[in-house]
């Protein structure tokens, strides 16, 4: 284990260090297929994520759904067990901690979920719900009566603190009687009643109306200042993150593609994905409708990850060395064939898309030597419709044995690069 020096209450004490975190989920496939394929399919939800949280800071984990941000949050508070890597909380690696240890950890770290309504038991009074963690973590020596009294006092003062007033009246209400904003306040009160050091907030304001979002964000900032609480703030909304986060990590398909101080990232985003995310935030002014940089298509599935940089099939600034592979050509071919205007006679020359295969850097189809020349020529023509970077990445096109193939040159190795105070994972910034 790494020995980390205890720095006490100095400003830059490290509270959480995540190193090369991996969370893979097995995919259920039918038995027969499993025997035939002989390989396990897994969803690479989180695939090598590292970051450090300093005491008292708010770090934003931003990305679209399916990027793995929620899984990171859950792995940190150990709602799920990581497949690999380390989660070092206050000098202890808790990645593989078990039952009792995890339960004790919950005093130190808590999580808030997106939907306040679903987070509260509808049959439990608000006061009881907020005090429930006290009950779970009470010490055995205390008598029930004195515990009750103390807990009630504790809950009431917590309710005042989060602005759930008049607290005496609301104590006995049920979640159904509360508005969305009040419910989220109750959830926050419950999460912080044990005075945890780390709070993971998973889309904590996404379900709330704009008009009350600000209040909840202010409350979180307030609690941070008062209790030196540390937050991992998970969101898809870069505008909200900008407002409350000291640092930002942008995630895409299980990896952090850019991480650094908020100021720097918002002022001058480096990764093309970060740029795209920033460009789609609406400007609340009908006179300033701006051009957007929209990536093509949607996030690919996390079972068969794209080669090289995972963003390359959608990237507006893609290079020839970013990871072009066989299936990228099949995607282009599919797009070409499905557009009647462009396809022309290609379906008869090239055959239906189902005849084509892709493996690694190569794509191809079986054919006789007679047709090979014609097919090769069409392939070149179709390639010309694709991104220029893709064409440059093509190694060979031609007949190989019984197949016409198209082979791409391999990608360059992607490495994390320091640019200013941030770290970015993109070939554009590598030497």
């Amino acid at each position, binding site marked *: 284990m790494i020995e980390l020096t205890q720095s006490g209450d100095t400003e830059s004490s490290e509270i959480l260090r995540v190193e090369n975190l991996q969370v893979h989920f097995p995919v259920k496939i039918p038995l027969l297929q499993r025997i035939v394929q002989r390989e396990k399919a897994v969803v690479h939800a989180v695939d090598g994520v590292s970051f450090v949280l300093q005491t008292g800071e708010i770090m934003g984990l931003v990305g*679209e*759904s399916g990027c793995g941000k929620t899984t990171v949050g859950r792995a940190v508070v150990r709602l799920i067990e990581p497949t690999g890597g380390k989660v070092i909380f206050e000098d202890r690696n808790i990645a593989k901690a078990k039952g009792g240890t995890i339960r004790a950890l919950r005093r130190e770290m808590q999580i808030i979920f997106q939907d306040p309504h679903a987070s509260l038991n509808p049959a439990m009074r608000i006061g009881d719900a907020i005090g429930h963690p006290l009950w779970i973590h009470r010490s055995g020596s205390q008598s029930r009566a004195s515990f009750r009294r103390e807990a009630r006092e504790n809950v009431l003062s917590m309710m005042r603190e989060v602005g759930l007033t008049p607290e005496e009246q609301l104590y006995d209400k049920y979640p159904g009687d509360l*508005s*969305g*904003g*009040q419910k989220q306040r109750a959830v926050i009160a419950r999460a912080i009643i044990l005075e945890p050091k780390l709070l993971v907030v998973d889309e904590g304001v996404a379900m709330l*109306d*704009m*008009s*009350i*979002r*600000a*209040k909840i*964000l*202010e409350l979180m900032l307030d609690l941070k200042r008062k209790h030196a609480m540390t937050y991992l703030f998970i969101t*898809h*909304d*870069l*505008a*909200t993150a*900008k*407002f409350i986060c000291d640092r930002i990590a942008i995630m895409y398909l299980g990896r952090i593609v850019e991480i650094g101080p908020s100021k720097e990232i*918002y002022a001058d985003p480096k990764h093309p994905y970060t740029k*795209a*995310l*920033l460009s*789609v*935030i*609406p*400007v*609340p*002014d*009908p*006179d300033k*409708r701006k051009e*957007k940089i*929209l*990536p093509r298509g*949607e*996030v690919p599935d996390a079972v068969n990850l794209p080669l090289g940089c995972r963003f390359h099939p959608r990237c507006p600034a893609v290079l020839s060395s970013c990871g072009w592979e066989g299936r990228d050509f099949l995607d282009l071919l*599919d797009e070409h064939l*499905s557009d009647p205007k462009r396809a022309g006679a290609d379906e008869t020359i090239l055959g239906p*898309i189902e005849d084509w295969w892709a493996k690694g850097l190569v794509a191809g189809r079986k054919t006789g030597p007679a047709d090979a020349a014609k097919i090769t020529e069409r392939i070149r023509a179709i390639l010309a419709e694709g991104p220029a970077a893709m064409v440059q990445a093509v190694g060979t096109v031609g007949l190989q044995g019984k197949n016409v193939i198209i082979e791409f040159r391999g990608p360059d190795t992607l490495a994390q690069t320091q640019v200013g105070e941030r770290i970015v994972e993109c070939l554009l910034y590598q030497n």
Partner: protein
Amino acid sequence: METFLKIDDLSVGYWTRRGKVGALVGIRLEMSEGETLGIVGETGCGKSTLGKAILGILPPLTEIQGHIFFRGRDLPRLGLEEYRRLRAKEIALIFQDPMTRLNPLMRIENHFVEEILAHESVSKAEARSRAREALLSMGIHESRIRNYPHEFSGGMRQRIMIALALVLKPSLLIADEPTTSLDVIVESQILEILQDLKRVYHMSLQLITHNMGIVAEICDRVAVLYAGKLVELGSAHDVFHKPLHPYTQGLLASIIHLDTKELHSIEGSPPDLISPPSGCRFHPRCPYAQQICVEKEPPLVEFQKGHLAACHFGDTFL
């Protein structure tokens, strides 16, 4: 010329055990052909009720008063059969959650075939080819037409919903929070599609949303609802640059965008619609409220050409 859509003094009430909920009260609104109108407000302000009232899909026993004239026909007074023929064919609706609106046991193709055959007497083959065309126009390949809804991603499902809503070429499309369950990039893609469609088909679009940002992006005019009442109506430019109602001002100030320097929110929460506040319904939350606001209900007044607001002090914000 007859108005494309004219809502005249529309009130909708739901009966509950505690009494009548006035979900909409005295709404007056017009929409012209080819226009994009944004309907905005907080949860429970009645914006979804308005969309449902136009389409005639409110729950049974709902009390509806007033008129909704659509190309001269008064919708609440249409017979069931007549209304059925109008839906999807002339007025279509896209809901918030595309997953729950597609039948999970039905192939995508059959959703289209069923809808087309319900409204037009064409052959099944013809219906199928139109389904293929509609999906292609949304960028979904015809090889996937026989797939089931769960085989598509969220963004694709929403595009399928749009294709389904547009296959009969309606003249009015009502989109109720069409992008709320989607990611930011997919949201932008869908908004772009909606704008393209408007240009191509010259279709009118009613966008119901709580997100002022997307209203600024695609709407020509904006209607702001508060507690069942229309409180402001005007061009997107006017409403965003010179909001006349304090509620609209609050909504605009609470938007969190990249240039936000300070967080703002509207104090309190929306009122209970069974016993709404007296006078102006916004007065308990309004920073400018005076005695008159408690006593007298402000009428909707046209303070500038095409810019209306229901506030006693609207002229002070001009």
